[in-house]
């Protein structure tokens, strides 16, 4: 029975006890009085009773007021203190009981706070050591997170049921290939605790997992499977899957590692290369058949002049067509080579040494190296530059009979020089220029590239020169020198500092997760996945046409707040904003210009929130806005909903229940209040702090939490 009711009952009993004897005496006196005296009594009573009643009532009023004051100060004050103690104990160690009310209560409050201080001092020493240990663990985890973030390949690890328990930044970037909008902060494809079925066809996943299991059953220790699959967005993704098992090989598969790669471009490139190849082989068959036949006809003795001319014409036409096809293919091939021709920083000395080995294997020539500076760098495509040097050396050896070559590396402030030197014999620059136009190639290998193309690609030049004094001639390749050489910056973002907390890209506890074990309703609150959200709106009247202008949401999985998987999106409401609401959320009409409409955003949010329990502060209000759109958009938010306002009313009936008051109460730091995401994050932290308090009161499962919510007073409010 609530304290208030007990108070009312106590007042009633007190009143009965106080007036009871007096009324009883009066009744007895009345009953014992003879009839003639009763008239006199009646007369007297008629005169004095009103005064008596009035004074009694006045006495009552004073008494009740006094009692109520005492009740507020003592009973309610103590109840508030008790709630505060629970919070202090389970949710917010920094919380202190307010020292207010009569001095006995204040004395108690002071004693409690002193006790709390004492405890904090004791815990501080202990915490120091725990923190130390935790920091070590945290560092390990950060190293893992950093490693994963650096990987260029997208990695996802899931448990045996396909729930994601680890992913890296590259995997998140791959979401685009699956059709995630480029603008959305988080699209709900990849996230901790989410199913990979959102990414990959469930049938395909089942097939892959079953096959791997079968391969293991057949005794293969490390089976791996590779599939290429089309995404809803039309991209092609290659997925390599291998199972995760325990230490011993016969242990069951506990999860899978998926390496994903968007191979759309690669496959397109291969397809166009195949097309080229086909064009060259099959495409020429018909033409060559025609030529062959016509040519054989010409050999026949009885062909007259007119016929002969016709066969000649056929041959000429077809040969021309074949030549054209060959030219086109050759051009396309060279273009393809040029297009994917990445340059990498390389050290000149390394190139010269590699070139010496390469040349000696291919040419009969004595080679000498002269490296004047070890630290000369330039951007190069190693192999084409090697080929260029080999081509030049080949020319000198084969055409000019050079037997001894000196390979010299030198440089100045801006340029690096690669010289091929020999003694004696002269050359002209015309000849060198002529070489530039010839295709590279040595021995049997014929590259379609010319020396000039290689030079142009490297921004390089080549000329002939001589050192008169030493009687040496040389062909010089000049390349732009690279000043500072650093490794290319990693495309992955830097790992956040410890203070900010590592990105929550993994949760190995999910290995042991199973959603088939119990029905959602009977699962503990601490184990469920939640989408905690908040909306900002044009006004307070959803049925009157007010619209959502912002949705912010974050996720709680396995008792952890996943700030890195948040959702935040402004929405163009296509109606004016209420000036009063602008004062609250500070979202101006200009900010909403060009933003997507609710028709685009709500399905994305629906996807983000799938398979989770929705949580909001004053959820009835936000849910009303969502539900009004359901029919129109053909989506339904049919997952369970929890309301932190109702839960707070259940947990802390004697406190204020606004978001600010609860944040203060639970020691939650408020940043970005009255942005949808800011409020959602505050709500999420408050909700997480509530879970142990609810458990203390016997509210453990989702079903119990919903029942507790329904009891509370606010449940009767309707929007």
């Amino acid at each position, binding site marked *: 029975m609530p304290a208030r009711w007990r108070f009312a009952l106590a007042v009633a009993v007190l009143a009965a006890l106080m007036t009871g004897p007096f009324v009883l005496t009066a009744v007895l006196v009345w009953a014992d009085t003879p009839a003639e005296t009763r008239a006199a009594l009646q007369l007297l009573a008629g005169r004095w009773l009103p005064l008596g009643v009035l004074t009694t009532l006045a006495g009552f009023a004073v008494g009740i007021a006094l009692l109520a004051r005492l009740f507020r100060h003592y009973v309610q004050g103590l109840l508030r203190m008790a709630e505060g103690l629970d919070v202090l104990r389970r949710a917010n160690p920094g919380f202190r009981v307010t020292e207010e009310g009569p001095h006995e209560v204040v004395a108690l409050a002071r004693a409690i706070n002193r006790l709390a201080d004492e405890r904090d001092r004791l815990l501080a020493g202990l915490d120091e050591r725990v923190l130390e240990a935790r920091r070590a663990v945290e560092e390990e985890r950060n190293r893992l997170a950093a490693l994963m973030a650096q990987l260029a390949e997208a990695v996802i690890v899931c448990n045996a049921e396909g729930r994601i328990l680890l992913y890296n930044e590259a995997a998140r970037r791959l979401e685009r290939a699956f059709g995630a909008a480029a603008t959305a902060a988080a699209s709900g494809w990849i996230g901790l605790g989410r199913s990979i079925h959102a990414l990959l066809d469930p049938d395909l996943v089942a097939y892959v997992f079953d096959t791997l299991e079968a391969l293991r059953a057949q005794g293969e220790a490390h089976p791996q499977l590779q599939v290429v699959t089309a995404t809803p967005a039309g991209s092609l993704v290659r997925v390599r899957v291998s199972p995760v098992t325990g230490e011993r090989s016969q242990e069951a598969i506990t999860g899978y590692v998926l390496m994903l790669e968007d191979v759309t471009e690669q496959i397109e490139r291969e397809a166009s290369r195949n097309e080229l190849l086909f064009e060259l082989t099959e495409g020429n*068959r018909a033409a060559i058949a025609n030529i*062959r036949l016509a040519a*054989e*006809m010409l050999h026949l003795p*009885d062909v007259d002049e007119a016929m002969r001319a016709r066969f000649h014409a056929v041959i000429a036409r077809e040969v021309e067509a074949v030549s054209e096809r060959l030219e086109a293919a050759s051009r396309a091939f060279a273009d393809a080579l040029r297009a994917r021709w990445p340059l990498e920083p390389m050290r000149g000395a390394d190139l010269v040494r590699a070139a010496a080995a390469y040349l000696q294997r291919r040419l009969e020539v004595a080679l000498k190296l002269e490296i004047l500076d070890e630290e000369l760098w330039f951007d190069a495509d190693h192999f084409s530059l090697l080929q260029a040097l080999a081509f030049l050396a080949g020319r000198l050896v084969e055409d000019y009979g050079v037997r001894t070559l000196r390979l010299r590396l030198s440089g100045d402030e801006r340029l690096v020089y690669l010289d091929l030197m020999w003694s004696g014999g002269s050359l002209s620059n015309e000849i060198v220029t002529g070489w530039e136009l010839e295709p590279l190639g040595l021995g049997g290998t014929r590259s379609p590239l010319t020396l000039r193309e290689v030079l142009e690609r490297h921004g390089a030049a080549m000329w002939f020169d001589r050192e008169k004094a030493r009687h040496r001639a040389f062909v010089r390749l000049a390349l732009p020198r690279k000043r500072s050489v650093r490794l290319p910056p990693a495309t992955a973002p830097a790992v956040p500092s410890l203070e900010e907390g590592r990105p929550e890209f993994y949760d190995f506890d999910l290995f042991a997760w199973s959603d088939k074990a119990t029905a959602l309703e009977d699962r503990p609150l601490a184990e469920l996945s939640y989408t905690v959200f908040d909306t900002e709106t044009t006004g307070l009247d959803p049925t009157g046409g007010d619209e959502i202008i912002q949705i912010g949401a974050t996720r709680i999985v396995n008792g952890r707040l996943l700030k890195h998987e948040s959702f935040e999106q402004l929405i163009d409401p296509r109606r004016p904003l209420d000036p009063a609401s602008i004062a609250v959320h500070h979202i101006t009409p200009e900010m909403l210009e060009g933003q997507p409409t609710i028709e685009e955003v709500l399905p994305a949010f629906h996807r983000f929130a799938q398979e989770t329990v929705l949580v909001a502060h004053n959820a009835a209000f936000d849910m009303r806005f969502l539900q009004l759109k359901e029919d129109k958009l053909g989506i339904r938010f049919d997952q369970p909903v929890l309301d932190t306002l109702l839960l707070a009313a259940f947990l802390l009936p004697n406190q204020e229940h606004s978001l600010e008051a609860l944040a203060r109460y639970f020691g939650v730091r408020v940043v970005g209040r009255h942005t949808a995401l800011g409020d959602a994050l505050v709500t999420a932290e408050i909700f997480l702090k509530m879970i142990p308090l609810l458990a203390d009161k016997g509210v453990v499962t989702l079903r119990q939490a919903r029942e507790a919510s329904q009891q509370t007073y606010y449940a009767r409010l309707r929007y």
Partner: protein
Amino acid sequence: MTKKILVVDDEENILISLEFLLRRAGYAIALARDGDEALAQAERFSPDLILLDVMMPKKDGYEVCHLLRQDPRYERCKIVLLTAKGRDIDRAKGLALGADDYLTKPFATRELLERVERLLAPAPGAA
């Protein structure tokens, strides 16, 4: 009796040679340049053998071959597929659709003539 051959190909450059070659070898020749024309010519000319290109506009050689093989009137007519498709799998498909032989372009004239002769020779034991 002169044997009749229908040559079907969409390329004029090969028709010139084939027509000259086969006439010279003593056959009666008709020409067609696509699938529909091939079917029409087959009905009018009732050839003993058809040299049929595979890659053609309208109906391709496979389709023409398939249609002819379903018609009892052409039961005795031989079909040789000429094709620029060199894969074994294409050859298998052609033979499966009822072609009697399959020649991959480019081919030698002698090879073509030998095959045509062999196909048109009266079956041993026939009258």
